[in-house]
Structure formats: structure tokens, C-alpha cells
């Protein structure tokens, strides 16, 4: 499998709002801690090491 970079989320505006709203009452540290948990949860769900490596590289490169 390759990292899917095509749109893959139904109702993108809903998703984005949910993500942002989930951190509404958190301070910066709490939000960063939550992000860390979220990354780990999602990474485990994906599982595929090649895809994870691609995603890490893609996120690391400025502008993707």
C-alpha cells in the first residue's frame, strides 16, 4: 500500500471542525499531548510500516 494523498474523508468540513473543536478548551500543552495520543492511535490503526514512513517523511517536508 502507498500513502493515500487523494481526498479520502467524507464531509471534510465536518471532520475538520470536529478536530479543531475537540481541542477548544485545551491549553497549548494539553493540545500537544492530545495530538501525540491521536498520532499514536492513528499510526497503530494504519499499521503498515511503509505507509507510516511515507507519512512521516511527507509531514516533515515543508509544505508536504
Amino acid at each position, binding site marked *: 500500500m502507498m500513502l493515500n494523498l487523494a481526498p479520502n474523508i467524507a464531509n471534510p468540513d465536518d471532520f475538520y471542525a470536529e478536530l479543531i473543536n475537540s481541542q477548544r478548551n485545551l491549553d497549548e*500543552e494539553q493540545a*500537544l*499531548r492530545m*495530538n*501525540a*495520543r491521536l*498520532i*499514536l*492511535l492513528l499510526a*497503530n490503526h494504519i499499521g503498515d510500516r511503509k505507509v507510516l514512513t511515507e507519512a512521516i517523511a511527507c509531514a516533515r517536508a515543508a509544505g508536504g
Partner: protein
Amino acid sequence: MTNYIYPKFGYLRSKEQADGIVKRHPIVVIGAGPIGLTAALDCAARGQPVVVLDDNDTVSIGSRAVCYAKRPLEIWDRLGCATPMVDRGVSWKVGKVFFHDQLSYQFDLLPESDHQWPAMINLQQYHLEEILVAKCRANPLIDLRWKHRLISLKQAADYAKLAVETPDGIFTMEAQWVIACDGANSDTRKMVGAEFTGQFFQDRFLIADVVMKADFPTERWFWFDPPFHPGQSVLLHRQADNIWRIDFQLGWEADPDEEKQPERVIPRIRAMLGDGAQFALEWVSIYQFACRRIDNFRQGRVLFAGDAAHQVSPFGARGANTGVQDIDNLAWKLAMVLRGEAPVALLDSYHEERAYAADDNILNSTRATDFITPKTKVSRYFRDAVLELAQHHAFARPLVNSGRLSVPTPYLTSALNTPDVDLAVGEMRPGTNAADAPISIAGKPSWFLHCLGNGFTVVTFGKATEKTVIEIGPLAARILRVGRDIEDSSGLLAARYGASPGTTYLFRPDQYVAARWTGFDEAKIIEAMLRATGQDSAGQKELAA
């Protein structure tokens, strides 16, 4: 503050120093720590006389190694000293990791039963060294010389010249081969000008040995950010004689001299054990840890082993454990070279195989240290996230890293291996250390590893041969036929080796798999034996002549 009485081994003036005659010895070992002592025992076990020089006259001082793993115990068993170590120490296999005051992860080191030795024992390094020293003293091939400090070493083409300082002054001796086991600050390493590079970790640890009667189980307990030591980690281990090892992470800002003072240490322990706890301090030291390795384990006639060759942070108990395996790898090769049974080039495979293992250990120790001491704020958030999630979700538990405990590194890419050709089953690939299994010999129960280790051994399942030995030039391999020489009544040996009738393994003298086949073929075994002793086709002709 210690209750332990350090033995004094006593200096003796050697005959060669008294006579003023320069003697050339086949093997001189520098340093009588756990690795130098093991080196002496293994060289002697392979028939070589050894001189050991140590600048001190007692065992390791203070709080150092505690945990010894199954593979070193197997090696020490081959050398006749595992039983007293296991009897003196405490065996364990369960580790628990806590985050705050909650259990977040638990592991069991040896879920497979039917192994002779426990997954781990805990024993103070001084007790371990006492057992090794006693064994060395009882061996007529070993000459232990205390209060002998190596002060210079010069190499010639086929020997090294050593200047040694004793209470009687300085004298010169020569060695065909030197095994340098003089620890992390190795003088020998500086004398040969070798590089020793790596990484220092920006953190300090208080290592306390505490005498107490406590009802903690015999398990490894590791806390991240516990209420009694907020923001840092703590490790608890049981040792022999009701002594417990407690490691407190202190952070980089801690002042090592102040933190060592009992008035600082005692409240930390009291916070952990509760106000009513009865305990006494046995030893306290402060460490900064590092992971470093020498550029080449072989520097001409000098072979480096143990901490002199590699240093690791102790999370994973990999220091002495891997040093013992250096010796296991080196001694048979050196003995064969000295007997003229293998070319000197075989010793380059010592570097190849053990540097590969050292890199694996350093990788594991560095990863554990990075987990325990996150380098940035955000990496700390990730670390804490793993610990939080691990309390509730199985997926995060394998990510928790409080030290991956020492297991042998297989030499999967070694030039000494004969790669699998035909369909091979099971995990025992060439370059892997032999798995143990219960067997019996003439109806008497024993262990498979007891049958290996004296030179090369061929183990074959079924009735493919009537022979008992295979020889080529000076090389020989004993043949053990399962069903004739040893019985596998439980079937565990066949299961662990993926064996069916005809399956044949060639084991090296260090109990590693050199090659395996689905049938017994003498020509192939000979070829594999030559390869495992570093002989090319020119070497083969030389041997045959």
C-alpha cells in the same frame, strides 16, 4: 557504609619479574573484571595457558552490574560456574512498568518452559566476580596476577611488548595475543590509538544499593513519573542477601556530589518505601551514561572485549551480558589460530560478528535511554502519550521502553555462515545461538547445550550415518546422532530445530549454528567447517597438505 567485606587477593611477585627474563606468553588478558575473568576461563577451557593482569587486588567496588541473562549463564555453564551464580543470586522473569501509580505494562521474559537456565538472575557484581576468581584460581592454566598495571604496549608483527608496573617496579613481558578487558576507560585502547566514539546522555542517575526486608516480589519494577519521585523514573531490583537496587533518575541539572549524600538519598528512599520502612544504605553512586564503541575490535595483536570495546547505558542490562558473549565468540577462534588450525584472518570475524552485536546493543540501549530521558518537550509528550494509552489499550504496550533486556544478537550476515540452500524450517538459522532443550543420554536426563561447545559438533536426526567424527586436516567435528547418542524423548529438540529425519546441523564451538541441511552430506559439512574457520580455497589446500 557497606556490609560486604571485599576480599584481598594478594600480590605475588612473578618469577619472570624476579628473574628479569622477558617471557613471551601465548595470551595475556588485561583486566580481571567479569569479562577478563571469563576470557581466562574460556581460553583455558580451550587448552590455552593465560596470564591475567589486574591493577587492583579485589573485586568490583560498589553498585554496578546486577542482571545476568540466560545466554551468559549458558556460557558460564560451559565454563563450570553458572550453578554457583544461580544458587547465590535470585532468578526472575517478570517485569512491570508503572506510570504514576498505575500498572501500564507487564512482560514475561521466558514464556517457553523446558530451558535449563532462568531468563535472568540478579546478583551483585562483586559476588559474581568472586565466583569467577575462585574458578580461575582452581585452574592450573590460569595465572592471575594482582597489582599488575599495564603501563605501555608496543606492537611488533607477531607479538606485543608490555610494560607492567607492580609493587616491585616495572618489568617487560611479551604476548602473542593480548585480550584487552580493562573496562570503559581502557588504557590499552589509548595505547593502540583506537577511536572510541558515541553518545553521552544528558541525564544523571542515583544508583543506590539498600539493605532491607521488603515484600516486593522478585520482579523488575520500573516507574515513570511516580508520585514519590515526580517527573523522573525509578527502577527497583532485588539482589542477593536482602539487598535491593534502586535507580533514581535525577535529571541533568542534579549536582552529583550533593545527591550522593545520605541526607539527600535517605528521604528519596523513604518517600518510595513509606515512613515506617527499615532500611540501610549499602552503596550509593551517581552515573551519567553513554553508548560508545571502539572502531575495530581487533587492533593488530590486541583484541578488545567487554566495556573496553563498547559501553552501553544499563537499561537492558547489556554491558557485562554482551561482554561475556564477546569472549564466547573470541576464545575458540584464538585457540584455533594459536594451534595453527585456522588462519589469523579468522580473528577478523571476531570484529565482524561482535561489532555487529555491539551496534545492536547500542541501538537498543540508546532507544531505551531516549524513551526514559526524552530530549525535547514534544518527545516527552509522545512518551507520556504511550504510557497513558498503554494503561487502557493493548496496542501501546509494546511501545513502552524501559529497557529491552539483553538477548543474543544473531550473526545473520556473518561470512562464517553457510547460507541455507535447501528448504530449511524453523528459527535456527545459520548465525543463531543454539536453543537448549531437554534430552537424555543413555537414559539419563541432560540438556542439549551440554553436548555442544567442545569444538565443532554435527547433530543429525535419523539414521543417515554410522560415523562418529568428520575430519579435514587438523579440523574435526564430532557427530551426534539423535536416537543413537542422545535421545529426544520429549520431541522438543526436533520441534525447536524444525527437524525431520535427515535434518543435519553444524554447530560452532561457541554453540552457534554454522550451517544446516535437510540431509547428511559429508562434503558439504567439510565445506561449511572450512568456511566457519575463515579458510578460503587456498587455505583448504594448505590444510590438506
